[in-house]
């Protein structure tokens, strides 16, 4: 990445602030509850509807806001509101990503509407159970959420989590429910994560609609995958690793993502999470040993390579920094599926070198970027100190709270005059730092302890 590219990111694209302002109106209504809107908040919803006039969402949203203002809250109105909000954030996502692509000179494939139909049958009662909980939340408003309202989701969520086709919805709502539970009674909180909870709520409403479009038929690819780095996502009951890499195949050189997600519990933290992903030894070895992987006939859909360890073979060493230096610029990025378009999903791999460090602010030829060291995963060796000592960094550019930040995935640094290198996936086969091995040993093998308990208590 160059200083001039950072300079090209400065300033918010036209219309983004206005669009977010409209969404803020809905988010504020969700704080206090759609059950008692009041004139001012009803007007804010009407403004949101007005902005969508002329689009296919225009009429349903304006009808819905009208009914909501009159005190009627039902599935249909809730879905329209969530759709309106998703459209606004989708547009913001597109504007931000276009700005980023232009700054980086990154070529991105155009979205092709999949020919396939719906995502298949999912149990309608589970979807409606989720919708009714989300409706109750919206009616009560975040300020009205108490233990009973959170617990009301327990049974539905348990069933949703047991349904593999609803994993996205289950993992999302489980994360939201845990935050609400920890915040109860919400009325006494000093401040609320207003945009965040509205985000999670709105996505949940959409994922709980029947007949959601499926992904369509994926392309089948064979070739060589060169990992760039690992992004780790985690809440109390789920962990996901998302591997960013370059795929060389007959379809050209492309930026892809692949990964695995596993259910967990809150007491499994730090390097122990890798134990949950042990069913994919080829992928884990590729990360830990920094090697490339030959893949055979893997499905690729919207830039996501559906991982299958049985169709992957470890290949030669592949330094992610070399991959980033040589191949990042010439790789084509994938289009983002419509239902995933939200600024929070923007996470574009970049290479930063030759920067000067001032705390968490880095500068390149006089242009600055903030580094997000809070996002360094506890399951890997990256620390704020290593990041501050870096001379090169592979990271993801993200946008949140009105600004771009760099999330490091790997650094080359100089520590005590010696070169060191660390990647978030270094411990995919277990920690390699003796100090960390010792610290982890102190809490024992939590995964084994819990699995043993589960085996004894759940199957007797």
């Amino acid at each position, binding site marked *: 990445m160059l200083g001039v590219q950072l300079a090209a990111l400065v300033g918010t694209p036209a219309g983004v602030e206005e669009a977010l302002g409209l969404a803020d109106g809905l988010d504020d209504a969700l704080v206090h509850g759609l059950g008692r809107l009041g004139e001012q908040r009803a007007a804010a919803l009407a403004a949101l509807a007005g902005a969508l006039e002329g689009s296919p969402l225009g009429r349903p949203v304006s009808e819905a806001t009208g009914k909501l203002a009159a005190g009627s809250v039902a599935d249909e109105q809730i879905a329209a509101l969530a759709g309106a909000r998703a459209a606004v954030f989708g547009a913001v996502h597109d504007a931000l990503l276009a700005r980023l692509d232009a700054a980086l000179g990154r070529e991105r494939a155009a979205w092709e509407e999949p020919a396939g139909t719906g995502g298949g049958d999912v149990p309608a009662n589970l979807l409606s159970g989720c919708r009714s909980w989300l409706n109750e939340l919206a009616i009560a408003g975040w300020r009205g959420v108490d233990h009973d309202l959170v617990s009301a989701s327990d049974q539905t969520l348990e069933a949703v989590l047991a349904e593999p086709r609803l994993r996205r919805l289950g993992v999302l709502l489980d994360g939201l429910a845990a935050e609400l539970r920890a915040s109860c009674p919400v009325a006494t909180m000093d401040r609320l994560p207003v945009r965040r909870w509205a985000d999670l709520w709105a996505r949940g409403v959409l994922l709980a609609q029947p007949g959601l479009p499926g992904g369509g038929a994926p392309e089948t690819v064979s070739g060589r995958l060169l990992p760039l780095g690992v992004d780790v996502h985690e*809440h109390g009951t789920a962990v996901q690793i998302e591997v960013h890499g370059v795929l060389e195949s007959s379809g050209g050189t492309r930026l892809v993502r692949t990964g695995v997600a596993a259910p967990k519990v809150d007491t499994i933290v730090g390097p122990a999470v890798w134990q949950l992903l042990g069913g994919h030894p080829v992928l884990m070895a590729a990360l830990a040993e920094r090697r490339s992987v030959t893949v055979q006939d893997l499905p690729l859909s919207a830039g996501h390579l559906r991982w299958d360890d049985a169709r992957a073979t470890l290949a030669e060493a592949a330094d992610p920094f070399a991959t980033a230096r040589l191949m990042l610029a010439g790789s084509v990025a994938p289009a983002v599926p419509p239902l995933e378009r939200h600024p929070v999903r923007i996470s574009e791999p970049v290479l930063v070198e030759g920067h000067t460090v001032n705390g968490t602010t880095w500068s390149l030829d006089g242009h600055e970027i903030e580094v997000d060291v809070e996002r360094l995963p*506890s399951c890997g060796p990256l620390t704020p100190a290593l990041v501050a000592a870096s001379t090169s960094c592979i990271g993801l550019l993200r946008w949140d709270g009105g600004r771009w930040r760099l999330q490091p995935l790997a650094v080359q640094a100089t520590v005590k005059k010696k070169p060191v290198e660390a990647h978030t996936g270094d411990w995919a086969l277990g920690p390699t730092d003796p100090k960390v091995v010792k610290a982890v040993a102190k809490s024992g093998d939590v995964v084994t302890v*819990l699995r043993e308990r589960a085996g004894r208590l759940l199957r007797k």
Partner: protein
Amino acid sequence: MNADTAAWEQHSAARVVPPVEPRKLAKVPFVELADGRLQGVVSSGSDAARVYVSSITASTYGFSCSTNNNRPCGGLSGYYTCKHLQALADEAVRQYGLDRVARYLRVEVGEGENLIDRMKGRREPAPAAVVFSRFLRHLAYLELPETVEPLPEMHWFPSSSAGVR
């Protein structure tokens, strides 16, 4: 409201629940702050097949301890807590940090003071069966399969460096 607060409220990836600290799980496999109580499951020191369900209620500090078959714990008496409740409180502090536990239970704990000594409650009935079923539900997560399908919603839940190191 200052500018920082407004900014936090407008973050999609704002952190709401801090990750817990790692701890040994053999003795107290399950601890949670939920339904207005600190509650959890404590292994019996003598019988591997037996566990105790212990809880302390916020504000009133009413406490309870019984086996998962609802037999009252012999270590409890009117105003005195048993070793299971002690262990529960100690592990909760390890897992969540003293501040978070004390805030949840609405108790003030001074420098060098022990959490459980600051709560003068008395024995009260508690829904042990509910807590035990929450423990089973907790364990059931480990029986769910992994997935290679992308979960794009997890972008709202970044891993963090807080906790372990």
